[in-house]
């Protein structure tokens, strides 16, 4: 197995001198191709910072990051990225927003109409393709944003709390779709979340991140069969994983 993402001694410090905030690190981490790794931690632990550094959207204060064999020097374009607040633009329809990703990359949209349609269908948005974002519910907006992040079929997908603002039922539903889509094409996914259950359900590995300065406390491999439906979620192994992680956070006083 080759490592697609490699971090060596990566840390991030905001500001300088006495006012400097040590946000993250140092962290060493290797993420294999086709894995689904969650950065799990309380808010403010720097997990989003770490994801942005992998995307090349934020420069580490120290250390080096290699993605797909090359050093990360600036914004990487070989990734798909999605945030808690969606990057849907209000003046384009759902289809137009998905096509925006292609247009921005200079990929001719006309050749890929079918692909857009199929992707929207896979997240149950085929009937809403011609709607504007404000006409959709929060869950539907995030489904559309997911299509926007995936339409160019990136090998690496970075998801920064994409379900963070949704209600529990919608989260559950979208999680299942997310897992199904991941199983289909097996991209490498970095998934930032503060939900223990979400991390255990989706991931092949859960990186447990402790509060400031953020550090990877441990990486827990989750060797449960996919798809992880209700049966798996009610199994003793699943529940033990969740309890183990709860104990770690309890020890740090965040739970």
């Amino acid at each position, binding site marked *: 197995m080759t490592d697609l993402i490699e971090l060596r001694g990566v840390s991030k410090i905001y500001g300088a001198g006495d006012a400097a905030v040590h946000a993250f690190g140092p962290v060493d981490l290797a993420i294999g191709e086709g894995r689904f790794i969650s950065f799990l931690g309380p808010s403010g632990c720097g997990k989003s910072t770490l994801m942005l550094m992998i995307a090349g959207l934020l420069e580490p204060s120290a250390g080096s990051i290699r993605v797909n064999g090359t050093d990360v020097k600036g914004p*990487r374009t070989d990734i798909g*990225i999605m*945030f808690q607040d*969606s*990057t849907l633009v209000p003046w384009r329809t759902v289809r137009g927003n998905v096509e925006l990703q292609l247009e921005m*990359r*200079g990929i001719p949209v006309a050749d890929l109409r079918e692909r857009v349609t199929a992707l929207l269908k896979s997240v149950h948005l085929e009937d809403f393709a011609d709607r504007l974002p*404000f006409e959709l519910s929060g869950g539907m907006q995030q489904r559309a944003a997911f299509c926007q992040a995936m339409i160019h079929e990136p090998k690496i997908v970075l998801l920064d709390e994409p379900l963070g603002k949704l209600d529990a039922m919608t989260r559950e539903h979208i999680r299942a779709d997310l897992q199904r889509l991941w199983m289909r094409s097996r991209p490498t996914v970095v998934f930032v979340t503060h939900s223990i259950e979400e991390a255990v359900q989706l991931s092949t590995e859960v990186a447990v991140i402790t509060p400031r300065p953020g550090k990877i406390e441990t990486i827990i491999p989750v060797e449960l069969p996919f798809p992880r439906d209700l049966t798996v979620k009610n199994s003793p192994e699943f529940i033990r994983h969740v309890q183990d992680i709860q104990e770690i956070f309890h020890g740090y006083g965040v739970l």
Partner: protein
Amino acid sequence: MAMASYKRDAALDRLWRWFGQSWMFIAFFIGFFLFWEYSIVLFKIPLYILTPPSLIVTKGWADIARLVQYTYVTGLETLLGYVVAVIVALPIGLAIAFSSILRRTIYPFLVCIEMVPKIAFAPLFISWLGFGLLPKVIIVFMVCFFPIVLNAILAFNSLSEELTRFSLSTGAGVWRTFLKIRLPAAMPQCFVGFKYAGLNATVGAAIAEFIGSDQGLGFYIQITTGNMRPELAFAGIFFLTAIGLVLFGTITLAERLIIPWHISVRRTRA
């Protein structure tokens, strides 16, 4: 046949619904003018101070040729000043938003100038450039320029962090990012400036004409007031208001066409 009657019914239906929403406003409007008309009799206000609306209409109608001609003159000044302000202010706002050097030089200078009451320059422009069209256009331009430029700077500087990051991750160049994301995202805030400038425009034109001119509605209002003909002054004010309404209406229409997706427009549509 059935189709036509259906269409007519739908139109009637719309009219009826509009009336259902607006009748209070219409009633208030009519009440206001009735009160104006009869309070003059009731409170024995002399005619050279305030004239009833009925007299404004009849006397104004008698002088309609001059009013229409002056409306054209003032309307042209307003429109030219406004359009030139939009054409000049937008690129300057854009340049300031994207250049840190301009933001440290021209921007503070513009903010200082904004503090100066632009109307105070009007007599100077008249003395420099005479009684013609040009000084009026410049004064309208000045009162319209600043709201457009300041709102444009704000508009082009406030793209969300997420959209900035998204743009970077696609590898799109500056130009493509501008056309597909920054420009449309900036339009709502730009329209705030366009509308505010639209409200200023007729004020600028009228005051410029007060100070020095031999035609236009501002000139007309001043002369008729001096000649103790307030009913004609009111007629002039009415036509001046009409210019402002047409300009503002056109801007609002453009806003609805250009940013139909924006929340401010959506609300008025609902």
